[in-house]
């Protein structure tokens, strides 16, 4: 039963990804931008232009280009079916390896931010729900609305100004590590994990130090919707009939609270998944401010340079990860709520 559900979701996910790839492929090619001109410059000769166009494969018919990209013409160039995302038109490196370099930074940033938010936000949301209408609750509620409306890039800049420039407790926003430090050998690609695996404790601490402000910035913005949702779901659970009945039966308060929390967490899973997926692509602004070198920044460079293979690759990878995250959360949801049949 479970295996069948997972298989079905994965199957649907793959179909969705294929639709996505084809959709993105056509959309970007149907838009008026000219990547060839971007590459060779405005004053290139017609021959140089034609040569560049041929090199990029843009002189072929659209459907042929798609077929090549998907991997149906492996002799010309490896494609998706062969597990290749192509090569960047700007750097000539394989998109896959570039993504492997940049993605871990974003995942680290987003995951740490989520962990921080969940540790802090869930108790705060619960606190609000336990005394609805009271002063704490009003404060919690207004905070959640406020935090959720904030431009995270601006708060990042503000934090840099306050904590770096004014107070000097945070490092300069110049990257994941200070420019002086040698990064550890890339075993997993994750800076934090690699430094630990190689026993480079000081590098580990420095990496955390550099992540501090970006994580706090993202966590601040995420705390808005998450606190709002936890509070709302908790309120709903506390007002539900079964909690009232548990009171009628005379169950002890702590037991009632425990089950109310469980009932509140279940529907929260979906939103957390959506926010995670959103942040994977949306962390670009924070990455930009702190020069972290994550996949968002990579995507921005590619978009501004009309680097089609990179754009396609990034969209594909981020969506694929989002779908996996949704699946994992849905499974977790089904595990705690017996009404969901999987």
């Amino acid at each position, binding site marked *: 039963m479970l295996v069948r559900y997972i298989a079905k979701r994965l199957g649907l996910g793959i179909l969705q990804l294929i639709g996505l790839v084809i959709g993105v492929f056509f959309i970007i090619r149907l838009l008026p931008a000219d990547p060839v001109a971007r590459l060779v410059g405005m004053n290139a000769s017609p021959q140089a232009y034609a040569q560049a166009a041929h090199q990029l494969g843009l002189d072929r018919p659209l459907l042929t280009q798609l077929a090549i990209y998907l991997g149906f013409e492996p002799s010309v160039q490896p494609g998706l079916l062969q597990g290749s995302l192509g090569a960047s038109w700007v750097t000539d490196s394989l998109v896959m390896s570039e993504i492997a370099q940049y993605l871990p930074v974003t995942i680290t940033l987003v995951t740490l931010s989520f962990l921080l938010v969940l540790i802090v936000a869930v108790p705060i949301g619960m606190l609000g729900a336990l005394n609805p209408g009271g002063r704490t609750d009003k404060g919690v509620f207004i905070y959640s609305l406020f935090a959720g409306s904030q431009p995270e890039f601006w708060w990042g800049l503000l934090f840099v100004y306050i904590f770096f420039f004014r107070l000097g407790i945070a490092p300069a926003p110049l990257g994941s590590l200070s420019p002086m430090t040698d990064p550890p050998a890339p075993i997993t690609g994750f800076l934090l994990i690699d430094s630990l695996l190689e026993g480079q404790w000081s590098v580990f601490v420095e990496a955390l130090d550099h992540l501090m402000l970006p994580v706090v910035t993202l966590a601040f913005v995420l705390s808005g919707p998450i606190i709002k949702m936890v509070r709302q779901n908790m309120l709903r659970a506390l007002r539900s*009939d*079964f909690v*009232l009945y548990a009171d*009628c*039966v005379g169950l002890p*308060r702590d037991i009632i609270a425990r089950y109310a929390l469980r*009932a509140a967490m279940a529907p929260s899973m979906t939103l957390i998944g959506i926010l995670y997926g959103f942040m994977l692509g949306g962390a670009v602004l924070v990455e930009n401010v702190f020069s972290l070198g994550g996949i968002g920044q990579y995507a921005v460079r590619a978009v501004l340079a009309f680097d089609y293979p990179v754009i396609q690759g990034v969209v594909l990878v981020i969506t694929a990860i989002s779908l996996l995250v949704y699946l994992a959360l849905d499974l977790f949801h089904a595990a*705690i709520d017996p*009404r969901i049949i999987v």
Partner: protein
Amino acid sequence: MKLERAAIDAISIGARPLLAVEELTVGYPVDGGGMIRPVDGLSLAVRRGEIVGLVGDAGSGKSTAALAMLGLARRPGRILSGRVHFAGRDLLEMSADELRNIRGREIGIIVQNPRSALNPMLRIGRQIGLAYRAHNRATDEETRQRALEMLRMVGINDPERRVEAYAHELSGGMAQRALIAIALSSRPKLLIADEPTSGLDVTIQAQFLDEMWQTVQATGSAVLLVTQELGIVANYCDRVLVLHDGRVVEDALVEQFFEAPQHAYSQAVLRLHRERRLTFGATFPPRNGTPMVEVRGLIKTFPVRNSAKVVQAVDRVTLTIRPGETLGLVGESGSGKTTVGRCLLRLLQPDGGAISFEGADILAFGDADMRRQRAKLQIVLQDPFDSLNPRWTIRKILTEPLNLHTRQSRADKARRAAELMQLVGLDPALLERRPRGLGAGALQRVNIARALACNPSFIVLDEPTSVLSPQARAGLIELLGRLQKELGISYLFISHDLTSVQYVCHRVAVMYLGQIVEEGSVEEIFRRPRHPYSQALLSAHLFPDPSHRRVDNPVAPALQGEIPSPIDLPVGCYLASRCPYANAACRAAPQRLEPCADGRVVRCHRVVAGEIPVPERIEE
């Protein structure tokens, strides 16, 4: 004044009542300051071992009062004042912890919507266990044994299996039994039962109430039974309290209440019962002539998800309705009666059979013709709150059919709208209102007015009285009778409320699992039901007659076991698995509808052969 004294008398006499409520008031704040008080100065008393009924309309504050007696109020309500004496102590003066001890251990409660009262994430065995452990020290094994014991006590035969179930896996009746198991697990002295059987089928209801009765006899608990249904009160209660305007307006022993109600409100509640007690059938006989509606061999199936199988909702149903006649269609959930009603109007497309209306085959009509025909063929749905567009005024609602089927001028339509309102007994000033804020009875009348707009000849009434209070029901039945007499409309009256059927219908057909099992005049069927299912249905029906109480004259349950699944129906008679008279011949071949000597038709060869005893249902 009289009741306060009764409560005080009970206290002073020394036979101290178990529960004595004095001047209980619960308020709900409304925006703009101020409070509404659904419970306003309520006083009542319940003695040990008594079963007391608390009667009142929907929205009269019954449930609020029940919760308040436990010291609880649904947010944002608050208990404003009053005293609730239980075994000598005032609950409202106690600390929260003391109250928590009393709840569950001394006073148990079961509520109206059992599935939502159960924790959706825990198995019911665990919930019973939690309730038990909250008030008793016990090991895990002892708790488990107790849970099984409670389930057995409430009539569940295979508790080892049921104990593992989740709330959403249980039927309504099962869930309610689980609630009783929880409520009585610590043998409380008082059980408050708040509308415990609303939504349950007739036979399940009777079964459940019988079991509840037995259980409280065994545990010696007193019961405060909160309900709208006079039948329940008559058959199970010793004493009756009437709740109106937030307080108790009458307190009488049950026989006295039904014989000679004192308060004007009680009299209004009992009106229908008192006026029409001994009558059967609609007052005005139908006209003769060509049948208005003829249904032959109607079939409707529904596909089952992820399966090639189908649900046989309606299985070759044949009926005839004459002009000015009311045919009742009764049965429990799954009988197909609602589906028949919808098929007659082609709101569902039948899968087989023929339907003719005033001689014309309506299944052959194209879309446009069918739409035009709808002026003549109308339906009134069950839920009055849901069947009217909440954003439209009543006027707009009533003129919609006029816009669809006539070319009347604005002035004519306005006149017709006012006319319709008066026809159904409503003040035409209500035309400018929206449905919100009107009571169920008024809304149901609006529904009828809308159906009447284009002068229909036939109206299907789908459970029109189910959500109405007893006096709204009485008013509606009266209205239907009057309209039939004045306008000559035929009705198909679909209902599970046998009392309404008794007063409204000329003839009645009993349905079971998609088939008609018996059909005849209302008097014949209600007085002398022949088919075993009709017998079971009628014996389970709680007639509001305290002189012949069900608990004093217990009848062995006529049907055993569970209803077979409508997906896998047996070859022979569908009732055979539950019928006490079933023999090999019954199971072997499908049963056909055969005429009996007295003019009715029955689907049972044993009945036709005279092999089934027919109880003469005792006159009320």
